[in-house]
């Protein structure tokens, strides 16, 4: 079909096509542009037909990529032509050539408006299309009311109405402040009754734009959306022309489900039920078929349904269906589906409870990391990054490192940044972290920002234990030929600071280290030289007794750089030279770097900022924002109460961090970790992270406790710690303006020993608890009392149970009437011994404020104990039969709250550990017995012996014996927690809560606890 009538244009296109090369083409185009320019200059002689032809030529030239900087006026002026053919060309060419910011468009506003309000339907369509495609702010100001009128006018035919709807969508999306949409909620709902599916498709897009800004106003549209979706999914009354490969308008289905995702929930039970029926049908009924287009269309619908299900946080069963589907998708060969499977699985990570299932697919995801398609590799990388936590960090990071060497350049930067962040966030131990970063620098030095190597230096400086290791690693790397300059920097720095720690190792004499580093000097650029000079000065300082030969060598280097053109290098050379001849002063000036102040990782901060920037309003994203990272803030302990605890690494670090959080809750928040929410949740990595820092502690625990299959078990210690600290830092860090009455922590503590009382109180609500415990089962009743004279609305209570408790909360009403009290029974079954704590996530609205609180529930370990009194004849055979770890564990506990023996006995009895007087001959000792009930082991006898030191009441030795290793460990830790009460610890803030005898033989000799043990 030739371009009827416009021969000139066809000829021009042919000419351009026949050009042999780019130069010829440019010549031909320039000639044409010159021609058009002269024709436009004497416009009078142009017929409408000619004008039209030239304007098309301009568009064609523009499309070829040439600058067309004239003639815009002519294109715009065609819009006001009286006849359809010219007008049409004017509108189309204008909307292609110009963008919304172009000045000429202003000239056309009046004509456009006349066309829109005029009677000519075809003109209306042309005008609406152009405004919909390039309409800017001025169009919104002057045309929006007219377009709105048109949409709701009853005389407007579908072909105009659908254009008007999209035109309004554009004006509103670009300038929501200009377009007045008061009262549009009802009109929108009316528009959704439209029978014409073309109009409905456009209207649905408009609805999406409107609800994305303010869903509150459009509740009335929600049931209609569900109706439309039902009608489509069941293929009821859908004209043939609106089915696409047999699927009733997949686009409208997708749009409708998109609109639904902007509403936080679907409250009406009937609507909810219908919606879930439809979703279920889509999830189950989508099969893979041969026809590509049908497949794509049905999967477009399916993936949108998945998003909606995730958003609605549907019933567990449906969620696991989704995960199962995604698991299937990420394993298929078809690349589109696999790509989308990976992408949606990453989104799915934001929904709680599925992480563990997703982890099962780790191997499959790693395969996709090596796919030939970069799009898929990117998705796989993102997913691996998102699913990483302490349990799999090692595997994933090592996989990323391995892949780094073979990955394409486009991805290396992202890859190395992600690996660095993960290594820092989830390092099981710091030496591994150092390993990873050094490997990263080695493999992808070009992509390692300074932030990354500064951070590793910070860690090493602040952790003495790490220094010899890091220095040794640096020594290894500096020996390699052709290492990256960043590696020279970091190795030289580490060796200068800590190289002397290696002195006795082979190849690590000052001279040898110096030579190894100095070999790199000729290969480095200016900015690295000052670092090397500092390193030399430090090596010189550490060489005792001085090595004259080395000294002369280094001095001659300083001397050489004294006249360097670079000021920094020159200054250092001069200063170091002068200093090194001063002898003693050198040692002071070049003393080891002081520890760095604790700070958040700049890397992680950057990553978070990016995430927040791009986040949108959809609920899943909001949720993801709340998952604040728990970056490793190990560095050093800040002096607490003026004391600088100088104590061995890992163990104490956490203890002091905790106490600090307790003492300075505001400080904790201002650190940028507004993570009270995060920390309470036992599923989250922060807790695991702490537990892993506590690594050595696990040694004294029963070995199979770690391997018993629940990943959460390995996080025992950390979780309870995290929960402890979080309770002190209630919710002020968040949005809540409502202050609790009384201390949440104290109330919880009291309830741990009592079965009824108040769990939480603020000006609006009081939450009371009453509990009954029988063997391994319990029944808690929550009393929710509204203190106000108006109702409390949007009440929601969610139980976050730890893995060892089965909990079922009966329905909590959404509204609590004024001055009324509601009772909500909660059934508890104890499966295993564990000190993890269940959390009640409670929220309600009062007036404009939404209050959300996280409360620990007093369903703690001792509630499942039944005191048992034993005679001497019963006690000792049992005590003897349980010999040694892991069934019997002994530990010296320091930092104990000094208590008279009688009070300690009371404490034990309160914990349902029955003190048996007279069993131990020593009056300073206590022996107690009890029975522990759980579903997995029914009744289990527990025996405890405490030996106190009358000379020092802050320490004691504790022995715990039961028939189950996990139970022994848990019970021992539990008792320890009761004895070493953190709030009272403010006087001894940074004391180590515990250190165990068997693993700490070195400390025996000078440790008072050890002396005590020896005495006994």
């Amino acid at each position, binding site marked *: *079909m*030739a*371009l009827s009538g416009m021969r000139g244009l066809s000829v021009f*296109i042919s000419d351009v096509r026949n050009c042999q090369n780019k130069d010829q083409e440019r010549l031909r185009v320039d000639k044409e542009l010159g021609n058009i320019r002269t024709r436009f200059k004497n416009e009078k002689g142009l017929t409408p037909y000619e004008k039209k032809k030239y304007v098309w030529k301009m*568009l*064609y030239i523009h*499309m*070829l*990529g040439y600058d067309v900087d004239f003639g815009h006026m002519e294109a715009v002026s065609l819009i006001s032509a009286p*006849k*359809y*053919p010219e007008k*049409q060309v004017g509108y*189309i060419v204008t909307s*292609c050539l110009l*963008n919304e*910011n172009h000045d000429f468009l202003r000239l056309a506003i009046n004509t456009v408006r006349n066309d829109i309000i005029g009677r000519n339907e*075809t003109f209306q369509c042309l005008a*609406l299309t152009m405004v*919909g*495609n*390039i309409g*800017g702010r001025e169009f919104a100001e002057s045309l929006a009311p007219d377009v709105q009128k048109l949409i709701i006018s009853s005389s407007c035919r579908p*072909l105009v109405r659908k*254009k008007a709807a*999209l*035109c309004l*969508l*554009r004006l509103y*999306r670009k300038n929501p402040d200009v377009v007045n949409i008061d009262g549009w909620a009802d009109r929108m709902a009316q528009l959704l009754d439209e029978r014409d*599916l*073309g109009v409905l*498709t*456009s209207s649905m*897009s408009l609805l999406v734009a409107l609800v994305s800004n303010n869903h509150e106003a459009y509740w009335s549209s929600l049931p209609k959306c569900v109706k439309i979706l039902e009608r489509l999914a069941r293929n009821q009354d859908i004209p043939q*022309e*609106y089915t*696409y490969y047999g699927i009733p308008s*997949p*686009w*409208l289905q*997708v*749009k409708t489900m*998109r609109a639904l995702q902007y509403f936080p929930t679907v409250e009406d039970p009937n609507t909810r039920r219908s919606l879930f029926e439809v979703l279920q049908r889509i999830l189950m009924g989508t099969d893979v078929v041969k026809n590509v*287009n049908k497949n*794509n*269309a049905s*999967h*477009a619908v399916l993936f*949108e349904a998945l998003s909606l299900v995730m958003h609605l946080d549907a019933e567990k069963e449906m969620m696991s269906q989704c995960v199962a589907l995604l698991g299937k998708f990420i394993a298929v060969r078809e*690349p*589109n589906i696999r*790509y*989308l499977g990976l992408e949606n699985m990453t989104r799915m990570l934001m929904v709680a409870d599925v992480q563990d299932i997703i982890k099962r697919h780790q191997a499959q995801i790693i395969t996709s990391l090596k796919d*030939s*398609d970069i*799009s898929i590799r*990117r998705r796989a990388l993102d997913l691996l990054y998102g699913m990483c936590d302490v349990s799999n960090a090692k595997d994933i990071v090592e996989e990323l490192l391995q892949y780094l060497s073979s990955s394409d350049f486009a991805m290396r930067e992202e890859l190395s940044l992600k690996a660095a962040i993960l290594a820092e966030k989830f390092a099981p131990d710091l030496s591994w972290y150092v390993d990873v970063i050094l490997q990263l620098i080695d493999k992808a030095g070009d992509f390692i920002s300074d932030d990354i190597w500064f951070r590793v230096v910070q860690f090493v400086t602040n952790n003495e234990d790490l220094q010899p290791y890091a220095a040794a690693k640096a020594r290894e790397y500096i020996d390699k030929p052709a290492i990256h300059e960043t590696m020279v920097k970091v190795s030289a720095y580490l060796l200068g600071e800590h190289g002397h720690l290696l002195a006795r190792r082979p190849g690590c004499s000052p001279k040898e280290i110096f030579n190894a580093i100095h070999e790199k000097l000729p290969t480095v650029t200016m900015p690295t030289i000052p670092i090397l000079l500092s390193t030399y000065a430090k090596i010189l300082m550490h060489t005792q007794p001085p090595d004259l030969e080395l000294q002369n060598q280094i001095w001659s280097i300083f001397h050489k750089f004294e006249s360097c053109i670079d000021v920094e290098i020159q200054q250092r050379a001069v200063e170091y030279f002068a200093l090194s001849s001063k002898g003693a002063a050198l040692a002071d000036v070049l003393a080891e770097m002081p520890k760095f102040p604790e700070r958040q990782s700049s890397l992680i901060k950057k990553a978070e900022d990016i995430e927040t920037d*791009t986040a949108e309003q*959809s609920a899943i994203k909001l949720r993801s924002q709340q998952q604040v990272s728990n970056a490793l803030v190990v560095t050093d302990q800040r002096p607490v109460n003026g004391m600088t605890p100088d104590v061995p690494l890992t163990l104490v670090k956490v203890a002091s961090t905790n106490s600090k959080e307790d003492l300075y809750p505001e400080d904790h928040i201002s650190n940028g970790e507004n993570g009270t929410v995060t920390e309470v949740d036992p599923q989250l990595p922060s807790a695991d992270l702490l537990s892993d820092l506590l690594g050595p502690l696990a040694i004294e625990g029963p070995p199979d406790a770690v391997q018993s299959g629940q990943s959460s078990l390995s996080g025992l210690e950390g979780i309870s710690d995290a929960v402890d600290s979080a309770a002190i830092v209630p919710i002020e860090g968040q949005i809540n303006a409502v202050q609790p009455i009384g201390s949440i922590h104290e109330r919880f503590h009291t309830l741990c020993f009592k079965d009824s009382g108040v769990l939480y109180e603020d000006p609006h609500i009081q939450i009371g608890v009453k509990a009954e415990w029988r063997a391994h089962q319990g029944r808690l009743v929550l009393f929710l009392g509204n203190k106000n004279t108006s109702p409390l609305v949007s009440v929601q209570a969610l139980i976050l149970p730890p893995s060892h408790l089965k909990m079922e909360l009966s329905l909590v009403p959404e509204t609590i009437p004024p001055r009324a009290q509601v009772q909500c029974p909660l059934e508890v079954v104890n499966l295993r011994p564990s000190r993890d704590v269940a959390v009640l996530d409670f929220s309600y609205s009062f007036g404009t404020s939404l209050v959300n609180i996280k409360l620990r529930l007093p369903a703690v370990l001792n509630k499942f104990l039944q005191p048992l009194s034993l005679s001497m004849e019963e006690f000792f055979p049992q005590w003897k039969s349980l010999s040694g770890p892991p069934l019997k564990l002994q530990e010296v506990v320091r930092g104990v709250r000094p208590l008279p023996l009688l009070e300690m006995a009371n404490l034990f009895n309160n914990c349902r550990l029955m003190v048996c007087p007279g069993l131990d001959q020593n009056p300073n000792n206590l022996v107690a017995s009890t029975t522990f009930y759980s579903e997995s082991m029914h009744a289990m006898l527990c025996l405890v012996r405490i030996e106190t030191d009358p000379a020092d009441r802050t320490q004691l030795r504790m022995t715990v014996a039961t028939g189950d290793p996990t139970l022994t460990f848990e019970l021992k830790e539990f008792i320890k927690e009761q004895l070493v009460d953190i709030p009272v610890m403010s006087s001894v803030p940074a004391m180590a809560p515990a250190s165990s005898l068997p693993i700490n033989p070195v400390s025996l000799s000078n440790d008072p606890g050890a002396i005590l043990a020896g005495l006994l």
Partner: protein
Amino acid sequence: MIHFVLLISRQGKVRLTKWYSPYSQKERSKVIRELSGLVLTRGPKLCNFVEWREFKVVYKRYASLYFCMCIDQDDNELEILEIIHHFVEILDRYFGSVCELDLIFNFHKAYYILDEILIAGELQESSKKTVARLIAAQDSLVEAAKEQASSISNIIAQATK
């Protein structure tokens, strides 16, 4: 939303561009250069999505032509992929087994048709029949105007004889 539509030939020649987000002339050329490099080099068995800047580009190759649409990160990719196909089917129906040459010499028709399918970067009409009807109506309007013009010019021509 769709930010722009691009039709690029395998040799990198642009056959159609439509911008729903404001890009200056300079940016447009840059985008086209970047995307040609990104899309044309991709092998045949890879997925139809490319991540580009903070967007995604959904593309599909039909014979010698690549149809590309640029969308937001969280838009539904498969839906867009089928909008492309929907567009192609309508072109095919209009031209009768469409080929690249049709689109070169009748590029203005392709613009008309696209305007009936997309407005503001959103799908306007999913019925092929309706789109075909509207395009036919436009064509006949143009034809009618031409006939009228020629008849008038005939009259004038005769009158001035």
